[in-house]
């Protein structure tokens, strides 16, 4: 474009200023703060080098929190994605009420996670919650179980809630992916004598691989962002059983005015580095593989699924 050399920067500048102040600067600042011994807002911070990180290495709450993030991630990959693929396949065939199914499966995704947490706290309520009442109806009239109060299994029930909220999202991604596969591929396989099962397993599934990669990427990135659900639903558990990384940062710094800004920042820095280590290779691949427009899975779905 034949324009003044500074013009592009004038277009970028407002966004960059806001982004710099509220996103980039805080991230850099958390690096600085992670080097401070700062255990209370009332005390002056002191430089302590990498002491916070040394302390993290032996902090079992931190390792448990990290392991919860990883467990939720592995669980999401093993449960949500296969379910999403299954339902996308089921809906790919002519279905009565397909739009209704898709709309309903995706609906939990638009709820605030805080509302999901409140709703599911009642589902798991030991007195007359939904699940408890169902168990009483089906199994034993005296059934009682404090779903979210059992340190060993509470994360599992939170994971069920996570699946409830996100499976529909992955299903919509898969539906978009499926609809972008030319139907000729399936027809050709059928003419060659493949049954429906073989068409799904040997033709559709391999062709769906790019979409599955996208879904998995989003799961991986998303698994580091769990906060609302875990913070609200696991609040009643003992310290080590209730945290993921994000909630640990919050509790270290703000819960009951703990004010451990230095140590909390060290956790934040590690969370940032883990996220970066995952994101950079993926982004680099994306930049290499397309230089023009961002063609999204959803955009390409408009033909059939939408």
């Amino acid at each position: 474009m034949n324009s003044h050399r500074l013009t592009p920067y004038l277009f970028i500048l407002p966004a960059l200023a806001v982004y710099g102040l509220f996103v980039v600067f805080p991230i850099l600042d958390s690096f600085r703060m992670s080097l401070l011994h700062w255990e209370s807002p009332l005390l002056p911070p002191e430089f302590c080098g990498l002491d916070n990180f040394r302390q993290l290495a032996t902090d079992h709450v931190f390792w448990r929190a990290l392991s919860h993030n990883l467990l939720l991630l592995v669980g999401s990959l093993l449960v949500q994605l296969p379910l999403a693929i299954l339902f996308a396949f089921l809906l790919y065939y002519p279905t009565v009420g397909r739009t209704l199914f898709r709309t309903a499966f995706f609906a939990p995704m638009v709820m605030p996670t805080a509302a999901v947490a409140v709703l599911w706290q009642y589902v798991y309520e030991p007195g007359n919650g939904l699940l408890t009442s169902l168990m009483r109806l089906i199994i034993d009239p005296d059934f009682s179980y404090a779903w979210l109060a059992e340190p060993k299994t509470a994360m599992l029930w939170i994971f069920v809630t996570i699946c409830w909220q996100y499976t529909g999202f992955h299903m919509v991604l898969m539906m978009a992916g499926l609809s972008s596969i030319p139907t000729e591929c399936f027809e050709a396989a059928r003419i060659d004598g493949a049954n429906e099962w073989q068409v799904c397993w040997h033709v559709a599934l391999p062709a769906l691989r790019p979409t599955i990669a996208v879904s998995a990427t989003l799961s991986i990135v998303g698994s580091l962002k769990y906060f609302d659900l875990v913070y609200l639903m696991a609040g009643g558990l003992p310290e080590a059983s209730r945290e993921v990384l994000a909630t640990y940062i919050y509790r270290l710094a703000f819960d009951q005015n703990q004010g451990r800004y230095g140590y909390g920042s060290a956790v934040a820095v590690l969370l940032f580095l883990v996220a970066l280590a995952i994101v950079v290779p993926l982004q680099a691949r994306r930049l290499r593989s397309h230089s023009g427009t961002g063609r999204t899975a959803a955009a390409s779905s408009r033909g059939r699924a939408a």
Partner: protein
Amino acid sequence: MKKFTGRRFVFFCLRHAVLLGFLLLTAYPLVWMVMTAFRTEGDAQARPLGLPEQWVMTNLAEVLRSGEFSRAYVNSLMLCTASVAIAVVLAALAAFAFAQLRFRGSHVLFLLFLVGMMIPVHVTLIPLNRLLGVEGLNIKGGLVALAGPYIGFALPISILILRGAFAALPSDLLDASRVDGCSAWGVFRHVALPLSRPALATVVIFNFLTMWNEFAFALTLLGPGCETLPLALTRFKGEHDIQITQTSAALVLVVIPLIIVYVFAQKHIIRGLTAGAVKE
């Protein structure tokens, strides 16, 4: 078309049965929430599962009477409207430069924005608390404190979506307007923006939804007496924990408007939520 044979019929029925089963799993908690909101408290204790014995409006009325909720609604509405408006303007400007203008460092800057989309916002909780607190800008506690982080974290995805839209504009048209003497600003304002209304709608609706639902920043940066809707809901739950009917009524007030918006703006919401998923 093949014949509708016995096997195909069985498959058809089986498929719908599985789908209906999953629909039940997904929808029943929501249906249950709505039913509980219209029960009497005694009914909720005695028969928590089926249809309400009688449908009552008292729970909804009670929640609305307390005033907290109406205030939180207004708070969320003001905050999200203002933040979305600013975010979309900033993002559109930047996205236009990334899509249509050539300049040094565009790749690095774009990457910088993209990374922000993938980073958990919680990394910034502690530093933002300081930046907005008394040692910094001193706006912590009020709604204004949330606008900065909301806009900042809305920018990456908005720029990504809008850049895609601006890059897909027919280049003949853009060239023609340049030949006619349009400046970069003129092309942006009079050609690119009007032609990108669908993408702009996606960005507006998607960001509004994200901000409307945001919890962690609200929890950290808002003071007592000033709440957004998700925060008000969790506080309400804390105060009325044993009154399941009233909390359900509060939930209904939060969720049902969203579901209605979702049904009508589904296309935009789904596109926004999946925009991060660029195909390889």
